[in-house]
């Protein structure tokens, strides 16, 4: 195999991304932007999930929670008006936030970073509480987190609660000197985020860190005995994974225009973040990419032609089938083929 170092790989991806962007701009079909945004979003989510799930072997059922935290940080900051907001410590001592006027409305790239920080910290916190336990306990805890968070958001009126929140997006934005309409701008951002996620995943995979992750997945006790600081590594994985999911969620309210807890915490995020890497292949960065592109495109097509419920059913069935029959996913099947083909 050709050895490609990280800098070269990043450059290749950026070039591919730029080509895609140029082509998309020239074709300029809004629906394609909407559909592709979803697929790019899933690339990020699947890659993020795989850092903890595929590399370390710790299953996260609550991807929706981290995604939604990113989305709701954006909503909260959207609704925060520094001109009128006052925080009162006591009845007479209040603090105003006028000094923040210049920062608002916060641009989306900054929102992405904030969303990443929020979800990253949440990932760290949750990891700290539960990663000392077995993997199965951690998985259950992630389920619990998703529901607790959803309940909190539903009851938080500032971001709209169960009624939802409207986000009004501007008409046009500037990106690298070119004027784009909003959906194109979001598409460009998500494309960039996907590139960053893939480069990160690949870098980790080839580094000492990724090596350590693999030992946790293979045999955590033996890893500890060999000197691997497993808790620390797991926390790094959970934080990174959560952060990327939050970053994927941050632009979502602007994409969708009207955000309800049911859509942010939707089941399709939990299922797809797991199904895409598991069907694509969990041991490398390629797996989540393939899974996201294939499954994502298929679902975009199916939602339009069949119902979305049937579409989800098929995803679920495929997950079960692949997990039983092809545990290493499509990448694993290809690797098997290559191995038998190479032997004389």
């Amino acid at each position, binding site marked *: 195999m050709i050895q490609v170092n990280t800098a070269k790989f990043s450059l290749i991806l950026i070039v591919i991304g730029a080509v895609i962007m140029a082509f998309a701009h020239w074709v300029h079909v809004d629906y394609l932007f909407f559909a592709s945004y979803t697929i790019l979003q899933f690339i990020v989510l699947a890659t993020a999930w795989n850092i903890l799930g595929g590399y370390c072997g710790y299953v996260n059922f609550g991807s929706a929670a981290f995604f939604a935290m990113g989305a709701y940080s954006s909503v909260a900051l959207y609704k925060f008006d520094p001109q009128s907001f006052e925080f009162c410590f006591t009845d007479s001592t209040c603090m105003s936030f006028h000094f923040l006027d210049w920062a608002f409305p916060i641009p989306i790239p900054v929102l992405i970073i904030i969303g990443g920080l929020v979800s990253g910290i949440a990932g760290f916190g949750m990891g700290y509480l539960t990663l000392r336990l077995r993997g199965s306990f951690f998985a259950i805890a992630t389920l619990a987190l998703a529901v607790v968070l959803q309940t909190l958001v539903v009851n938080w009126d500032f971001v709209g609660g169960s009624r939802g929140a409207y986000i009004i997006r501007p008409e046009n934005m500037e990106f690298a000197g070119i004027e784009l309409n909003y959906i194109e701008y979001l598409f460009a951002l998500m494309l960039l985020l996907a590139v960053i996620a893939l480069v990160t995943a690949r870098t980790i995979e080839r580094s000492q860190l990724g090596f350590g992750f693999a030992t946790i997945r293979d*045999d955590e*006790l033996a890893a500890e005995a*060999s*000197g691997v600081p497993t808790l620390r590594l797991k926390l790094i994985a959970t934080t990174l994974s959560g952060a990327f999911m939050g970053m994927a969620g941050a632009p979502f309210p602007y994409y969708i225009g009207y955000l309800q807890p049911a859509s942010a915490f939707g089941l399709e995020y939990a299922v797809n973040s797991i199904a895409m890497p598991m069907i694509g292949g969990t041991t490398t960065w390629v797996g989540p990419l393939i899974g996201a592109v294939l499954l994502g495109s298929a679902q975009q097509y199916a939602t339009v032609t069949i119902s979305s419920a049937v579409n989800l059913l098929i995803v679920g069935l495929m997950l079960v089938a692949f997990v039983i029959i092809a545990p290493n996913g499509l990448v694993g099947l290809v690797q098997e083929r290559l191995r038998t083909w190479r032997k004389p």
Partner: protein
Amino acid sequence: MSALLHVNNISKRFGGFVALDDIDLEVQPGERLGLIGPNGSGKSTLVNCICGTLQNETGSVYFDGHVIDGLPAHQRTHRGVARSFQLPRPFHSMSLADNLRIPLLYTVRAREGMLHAHSDLEGRCRELLDMVGLGAKAKQMPRDLTQVEMRKLELARAMAAEPKLLIADESMAGLSHSEIEDILALLVRLNERGITIILIEHIMSAVMSFSQRLAVLVSGKKIADGKPQDVVRDPEVVRAYLGQ
């Protein structure tokens, strides 16, 4: 005379079952200690408590002058305690050479900082594998190994961590006579370089020829601890373990 390892009155229960009952054991630096006893007597539990895979409930474990109970296993490995697992636990998604790179990266390099950052990892892995006779299989996967070869890999992995104390937990099960001789010679060579060794085995000939001192564990209690010739003649030891 300060012991390298001092297990001070430790106990461990699993529910109602007492696995270790007030165990007191000392190992001097550079010593070759043999640990024997029937299956289920608590030998592996003792190793687990020393290495941090399990936590003892009472008493303490001292290593190299410091209390180490409460420390996670990886930190104990950094301080110089290494063990092989009785039931081999290789990293099954990596080649044999890569299995050894893990302790080299995470223990040896972590200990020495980046001083030896560019030293020859590949070469060291090869060297270690050669020492246990697995050099030719460096690029193979653990699933292609026999049980015996996996035990050798376990030993090599423990050695890779460059320990002060090496605990070999039944590394010789299933080996042929000449293979046992080879492993014993290897352990003696390591010992001559200053590594303290605890050998846990059922193969009495190996234990007797190797050990400077012999301890016997039965049902969670230490029932004998002394010169090998004396211990094997101890009537209680004969009754509980040897005489069958």
